[in-house]
């Protein structure tokens, strides 16, 4: 590693004394259109000098030793329209090239300087999923799709509920953005999956570390940003239809999107209707059926956009509805039940396969309304004004229908939360060649109501107001960008809770305010190397559950106690990110270290509380100082035109440095390797074969006796798929994928599954995906 960094530095040193014929042309090809195929292997040719190269698997390319002058540049790749353009080279040039899929229509090509993209956060470590990658993940949950990225893992509660974990942190420490607004769901719960439909995403970006000030102070682990696919402005009608079928759970999903584009003299407008539906029955572990794991999901969205000169207005609505069944064998009562479950290595009841979703289950509806105005000013700057209204209704139904005289008792949820959030954001962004600047202001209010069974109010009702203001400045000096930003946030929370004895409503008010900051740099040396460093401070207000929890956590056989005197959690995060390309080798490494003071976690108190349901171990929300140190190492090789491989390794060490102990629930180290064979590659079609090995190592960083059972042992899974893409004469594209996950039907348990005490993970699954884009 040290040598690579050194290499980067010497490379830029030599760059300063560039000779007339020592200029470099480098850049990356992108295709954000959803009809895109992979931007790897695209030919880049300078006609005059016959200097030629091909893009690597990430779409990056570089040509060295170019003399000053004007040249014709020829860019030609499978499935893309050929680009012939002129370019003037009198310095090292870096290009960001937007490709359009190959059709009969003449399409515009946007070539812009690479630095203009995301420059405010250019020092942040970033990875993502492109439209092309999402295509081969459709039908999966949002978190399961993200898991393919280096450094992202998943926390599950059975097979249906999954939430993303980044660098060992999740829930409130990991900010989710849907089209520029914070997703405000019930993200505090471990068994609360994010309310995002993967099919509605055009692309997804993950920013690692506390590097984002734009959307809030609380992104301690990072930010996951879901971006809608851009509208196709070359056709009146466009869209896609995708189908996915799978054997484990005998399920299927379908999704589709239809875009309409119309252009008059001055105004162009676009409308998108999108929907997806997924349904499956009970999943199988290798040896038995996982009881009550059927689920269904039905989502819709409408997106409307008007562009007139410098003004762009957007209106959107989306609705997410999911009803996951909860693993029946995880539904236990007290500590004796848990011990009984631990004594059996399989569930005591043989559950039948069914599509019926019985109690216990969840039913979640999340709706978002959004209005956004972008207005370009003359001075290379623009203003964004964005309003978002979110309505989140989470219903949880216990295994037992509530005891009640009420006739509607069967339909009444045991937990029923309604969370309503309104956010108003505005920002002013200036983009100059040597300097860029952003100033923003955000206002928000949130109210939560609870219905259902009175005593089971895990969290009280609340109303909160928040205000945030930030500024981010960046300067660009040749290949070096330095950025710095600061943010101030103020938040006030009023809670209303019914006293269980007096039945009076206790009202409480809390106020929090603090600064967060961020400083970083990005160094693009020659084509081989990009080095980023970032230091950020973030903080998080304790969640209402952490402050006020009191009661049994269903399915966890634990009694949780909040602490209303908890303080804000503060994180200091340092991230170093290196991208290195050399011949067949591509390396992307992220190294991070976080120090978090007042880290809130659920501590086992090692005593039991006696309730009428029996004895329960007590867990209390407490604060301590933690460190998280880790690395995501991503290495890939393009061995030949036919063969490439990729190797991902994620490592994390974390420790409670106050008590000198490990805390439970930290992600284990993970290794993932892919071997990709290009079986066929023609101008109109390609066929790939991919075999993947996935290992999660045993988590040894646990205290003895701190968990109900020791962490599960290391496991390795094998997956494979075949992928075929075809471009038809009518400018449509077909995508067909077939394969299997857990090919060997391996029995295993996953440390990051909260229900690991009760059953094995799912067994072999064979799937087929078909997508047609038009």
């Amino acid at each position: 590693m040290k040598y690579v960094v050194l290499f980067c530095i010497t490379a830029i040193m030599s760059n300063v004394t560039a000779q007339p014929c020592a200029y470099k042309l480098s850049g990356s090809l992108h295709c954000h259109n959803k009809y895109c195929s992979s931007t790897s292997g695209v030919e880049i040719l300078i006609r005059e000098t016959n200097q030629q190269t091909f893009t690597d698997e990430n779409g990056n390319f570089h040509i060295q030793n170019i003399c000053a002058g004007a040249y014709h540049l020829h860019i030609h790749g499978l499935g893309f329209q050929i680009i012939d353009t002129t370019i003037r080279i009198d310095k090292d040039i870096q290009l960001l090239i937007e490709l359009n899929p190959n059709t009969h229509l003449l399409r515009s090509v946007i070539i812009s300087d690479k630095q203009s993209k995301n420059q405010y956060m250019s020092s942040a470590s970033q990875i993502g999923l492109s439209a092309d990658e999402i295509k081969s993940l459709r039908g999966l949950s949002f978190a399961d799709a993200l898991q393919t990225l280096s450094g992202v893992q998943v926390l599950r509660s059975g097979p249906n509920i999954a939430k993303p974990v980044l660098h060992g942190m999740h829930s409130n420490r990991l900010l989710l953005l849907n089209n520029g607004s914070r997703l405000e769901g019930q993200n505090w719960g471990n068994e609360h999956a994010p309310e995002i439909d993967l099919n509605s995403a055009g692309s997804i970006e993950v920013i690692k570390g506390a590097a984002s000030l734009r959307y809030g102070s609380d992104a301690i682990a990072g930010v996951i940003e879901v971006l809608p696919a851009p509208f196709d402005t070359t056709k009146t009608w466009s869209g896609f239809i995708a189908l996915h079928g799978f054997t484990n759970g005998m399920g299927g999903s379908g999704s589709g999107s239809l875009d309409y584009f119309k252009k008059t003299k001055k105004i162009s407008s676009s409308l998108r209707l999108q929907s997806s539906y997924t349904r499956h029955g009970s999943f199988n572990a290798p040896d038995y059926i996982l009881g009550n794991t059927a689920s269904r999901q039905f989502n819709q969205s409408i997106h409307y956009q008007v562009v007139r000169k410098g003004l762009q207005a957007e209106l959107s609505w989306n609705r997410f509805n999911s009803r996951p069944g909860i693993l029946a064998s995880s539904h236990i009562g007290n500590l004796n039940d848990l011990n009984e479950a631990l004594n059996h290595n399989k569930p005591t009841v043989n559950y039948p396969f069914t599509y019926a979703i019985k109690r216990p289950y969840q039913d979640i509806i999340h709706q978002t309304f959004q209005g956004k105005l972008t207005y370009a000013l003359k001075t290379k700057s623009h203003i964004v004004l964005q309003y978002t209204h979110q309505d989140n209704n989470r219903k949880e139904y216990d295994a037992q229908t509530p005891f009640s005289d009420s006739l509607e008792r069967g339909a009444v949820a045991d937990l029923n939360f309604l969370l309503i959030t309104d956010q108003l954001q505005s920002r002013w962004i200036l983009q100059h060649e040597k300097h860029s600047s952003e100033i923003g202001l955000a206002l928000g209010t949130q109210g939560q109501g609870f219905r259902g069974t009175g005593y089971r109010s895990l969290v009280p009702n609340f109303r909160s107001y928040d205000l945030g203001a930030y500024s981010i400045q960046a300067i660009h000096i040749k290949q070096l960008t330095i950025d710095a930003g600061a943010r101030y946030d103020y938040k006030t929370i009023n809670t209303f809770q019914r006293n269980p004895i007096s039945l009076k409503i206790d009202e409480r008010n809390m106020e929090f305010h603090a600064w967060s900051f961020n400083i970083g740099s990005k160094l693009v040396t020659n084509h081989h190397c990009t080095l980023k460093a970032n230091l950020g401070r973030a903080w998080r207000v304790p969640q209402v559950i952490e402050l006020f929890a009191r009661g049994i956590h269903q399915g966890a056989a634990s009694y949780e106690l909040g602490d209303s005197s908890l303080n804000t959690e503060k994180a200091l995060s340092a991230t170093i990110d290196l991208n290195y390309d050399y011949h067949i080798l591509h390396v992307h490494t992220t190294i991070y270290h976080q120090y978090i003071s007042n880290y809130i976690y659920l501590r086992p108190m090692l005593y039991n509380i006696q309730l009428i349901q029996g004895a329960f171990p007590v867990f209390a929300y407490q604060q301590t100082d933690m460190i998280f140190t880790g690395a995501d190492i991503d290495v890939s090789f393009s061995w030949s035109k036919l063969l490439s491989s990729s190797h991902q390794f994620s490592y994390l060490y974390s420790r409670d440095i106050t008590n000198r102990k490990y805390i439970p629930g930290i992600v284990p180290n993970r290794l993932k390797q892919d071997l990709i064979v290009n079986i066929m590659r023609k101008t109109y079609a390609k066929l790939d074969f991919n075999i993947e090995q996935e290992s999660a190592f045993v988590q040894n960083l646990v205290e003895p006796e701190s968990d109900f059972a020791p962490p599960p042992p290391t496991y390795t899974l094998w997956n494979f798929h075949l992928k075929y893409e075809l471009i038809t004469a009518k400018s449509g594209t077909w995508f067909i994928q077939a394969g299997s996950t857990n090919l060997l039907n391996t029995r295993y348990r996953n440390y990051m599954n909260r229900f690991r005490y009760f059953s094995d993970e799912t067994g072999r699954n064979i799937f087929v995906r078909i997508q047609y884009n038009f």
Partner: protein
Amino acid sequence: MKTSISFYLYILLFSLTIASSCKKPEEDVEEPENEFITTVKLVVTNTADSSDVQTATWKQLTPDGSNPPDTSAAFLNLKPGSVYALSASFLDETKTPTENITEEILERATSHGVFYIPDAILSSNITIIRNDVDANNLPLGLNATLTTGTNTMNAFMNVILRHQPDGKDGTITPGSTDADTRFRVQIKP
């Protein structure tokens, strides 16, 4: 045209803000409407002497655990070598009048079971036979016959209500625990 688009949008945003500000979910702090098991009550009647009736209760009036349970009356005083008819009931005493949840358990008999588990020392000196059944002819356990041995002793017995929506087979194994209470049993002439 430009102004009309933005005007239209502003109106829309404004109306959305107004619409949303009308809804205040947090003000809806409901009274608890469902029933909770707060009390397990056992009534035993000596079949040979109808005046020998014992009542024992185990109660916790704050189901969230904010107050400890009251076990002062969780005590049965039985005579050796006798046969008792036992009936168990489950109550919500936070309601006025007290709600009897036993009726609802009876309605859902096929997915419930009451189990009497004496401690090892007691089990040699007491026999409990459940004598009511559900629609599937599997034992329910709200009524039982309790026969005491001849030894004098003072020991404990657990009364457990199991929720068994899947796989109820008459044993305690399937399902989850709704109530698990411990009663002191004294057998003394």
